[in-house]
């Protein structure tokens, strides 16, 4: 259980500014929920680097190599067929299948990596139960920060986000 303070904003400019100031004021930013990708949020949250492209590269290259290997095996080793002395390993003609299937598997690998990095599918999430959270996918920008344990600090935090333009503040345990 993490004690969170959710600060809701109605526009992206105020939201980004508030997140930046909150970070400057040493609040621990836990997450941000927005209806579209907001530039710069990821950096403010100190997220890990994404490995999606690495996964795609490995998947694509592996599939392309496997496809070429199959072509080579079938045309050169298993069923060599001499047609007018043409080379058995006709690599220019063999390129298309590794290319197309490699891209396909790169896409599949990327999608799988997306699911892993996002922790999806996960149909239930504690914050879904919070009133107003459904608007994070529509028209509200929600910043989740660690809720200070002390009453004094909590009051200061609430004032801070209210001053930054938050339209709603909620204390939740997620």
């Amino acid at each position: 259980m993490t004690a969170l303070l959710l600060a809701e904003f109605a526009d992206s400019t105020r939201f980004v500014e508030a997140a930046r100031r909150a970070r400057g004021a040493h609040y621990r930013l836990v997450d941000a929920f927005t209806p579209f990708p907001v530039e710069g949020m990821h950096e403010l949250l100190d997220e890990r680097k994404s490995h999606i492209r690495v996964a795609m590269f490995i998947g694509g290259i592996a599939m392309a190599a496997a496809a070429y290997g199959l072509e080579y095996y079938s045309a050169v080793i298993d069923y060599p067929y001499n047609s007018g002395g043409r080379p058995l390993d006709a690599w220019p003609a063999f390129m298309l299948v590794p290319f197309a299937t490699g891209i396909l598997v790169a896409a599949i690998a990327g999608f799988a990596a997306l699911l892993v990095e996002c922790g999806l599918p996960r149909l239930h999430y504690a914050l879904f139960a919070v009133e107003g959270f459904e608007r994070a996918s529509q028209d509200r920008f929600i910043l989740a920060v660690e809720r200070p344990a002390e009453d004094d600090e909590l009051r200061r935090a609430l004032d801070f986000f209210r001053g930054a333009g938050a339209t709603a503040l909620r204390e939740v345990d997620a």
Partner: protein
Amino acid sequence: MTIAAIRNEPMPPEPVRWTLPQARTLDAVNTIVTAPLYERGLWSWRAWWIGVAVSGAMTAAFVVGVTVVLMRGIGVWGVNTTVVWGTAIADYVWWIGIGNAGTLISAMLLLMRQQWRASTNRFAEAMTLFAAAIAGIFPIIHLGRPMYFYWLTPYPNTMTVWPQWRSALIWDFWAILSYILFSIIFWYVGLIPDLATMRDRARGKFAATVYGAFALGWRGSARHWRAYETLHLALACLGVPLVVSLHSVVGMDFAASLMPGWQETIFPPYFVVGAMYSGFAMVVCLAALVRWGFRMEGLITLAHFDVMAKIMLMASIVMGLSYATEWFNAWYGGDHAERSLVAFEFTGTYAPLFWALILCNVVIPQAFWFGAVRHSVVAVFVVAVVINIGMWFERILIVWNTLSHDYAVSMWRIFLPTVWDWVTTFGSLGLFALMYLVFVRLVPVVSMHEVRKLVDEEGAS
């Protein structure tokens, strides 16, 4: 003072806005896009039901046509021992061309940072899926023995033979298969955040559950968006070369032969441009229909039609140049069969169709030079329909002309379509329309999160 002002250069014009005032808040975007799915009472749906009835009847005809072809063989079509490819192959090339464009448009415009794609990419990508799926049917039913189509795949078999990897038809199989599956992934990834919006706006438990399940639990956190943007961009980067290679391979189905009028190096790029051209025309038709049917004037604006008309104009010029290059090469190459073929195109049996093709693809689209035409949705729609017809003529003539007018004069023969040619051709249109009509009732037709971003950026600038 800006640099332009200091240098005494003319100031850049006001940036074009891609939304109308009624759609310039985040909530307005959500409301407009989800209305057809959640505020069904606002529509009478009469046009939709008529569309379903008509396209359903056409789909039934298509099923009958395909069944007849499968039961009695491809001889029920007009194909003969000379013109061995007929409307099925032309339909295939036409559909795969349209099927190319959705991903090409969506991915290429994303890479080029064309923000206006936001309100068109979803239905363009859906068009791709349906058109590519239909395209996949034609080569299979055109096989003499369609029950053996799986011989295209490499699997250990008792015949101990393998597919011929040097054959363009095998490339075709892999290219289409990879492309369709890739397009589904590309489309679905872009759809996930919108499915989450649908889940969160659902009024009933059923809608919330179904959309929620397909949204996979998306919650729009910063990490989600970061991963999403990384993947989406990477997919776009891979999608463009895949699409280009796919239609190049379709071109090579012809160009890798030894036939006059087919064995040309220009075929792969020429086919890619043709695909983009007919695909854009189809997107324009669908955009006009979606805009009219779902009152999306605020999101799909005249500026969209203007810019899409300009792209079609550009493509029509490239197509004209490609045709001219073919004619020039035939003359300059000096080969008798090639020259004879071009003369046959210009004056032979199919000449009326050929001149209709030139009219539809090259001449009429020149109307897009005029702003008045580009700013009229009806005019752009009509020209787009004309382009689609012209592109079908092009596909059918590529098949008919060369096969009817081969090297051996004794082999020359004309293709005469039968009723089953028309049933399978128009029936496939019905199937496409039916799938599309179902799609617009199930999935948000405009990418909400991308338009929200666009609205936010336009608001800030």
